[in-house]
């Protein structure tokens, strides 16, 4: 399983805080995005924001290849401080 988390605008637009996806060999972040986009327009809108991507709390690109149990997060540029 892969855990997907969304934050801020990405969370609001995708209407998803957290969900799980089945893992398959050589699954990339881009694969996750394609799979989610197929689930509904809200994901297409969310990814049109070009969110930042983290895998296991480290910023990665969409080419990043996942492992079973990874946590993937999508979020907009940060605005803390």
């Amino acid at each position, binding site marked *: 399983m892969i855990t997907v988390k969304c934050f801020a605008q990405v969370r609001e637009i995708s209407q998803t805080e957290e969900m799980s996806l089945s893992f398959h060999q050589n699954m990339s972040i881009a694969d996750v995005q394609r799979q989610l986009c197929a689930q509904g327009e809200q994901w297409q809108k969310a990814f049109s924001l070009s969110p930042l991507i983290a895998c296991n*709390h480290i910023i990665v690109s969409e080419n990043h290849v996942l492992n079973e149990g990874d946590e993937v997060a999508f979020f*907009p540029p940060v605005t803390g401080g």
Partner: protein
Amino acid sequence: MVARVQETPINSDYETAELRRLLKLSGAIVTFCGLVRDFNHLGKIEGISLEHYPGMTEKTLLRLAQQAVKRFELEQVRIIHRVGRIDNAETIVWVGCAAVHRQAAFAGAAYIMDILKQDVPLWKKEHYGESSVWVEAKSTDKDAASRWQK
């Protein structure tokens, strides 16, 4: 070294005392305190909310504290970031750096704030009566962070 988030108000007196309590070598302490302002370009604000990525936020803050200690030879660093709903005039973030010389303490605190605003997964929403608006990332913050690249 301390780096954490909290939902309760930040007590800068307590944090300052904790920072000082552990010092053996330092002659200089620089603190930074970021406050909720009660207005922005859209008008009067009634507080903000800070969303964050539990787990990643803490890790990123701690790594940032460690990097600052190493880069500027700081004796102590504390970073406390508030999350959740925050009222006007309250503290959003408190950073304290202690070093032997003042230049290192100043540089350390400025570095932490510049990188924090670029790298730590926190998102600010400003409240206006019934509505609320996500704060946009600023290009000036990107520029501020890039000056530390080497």
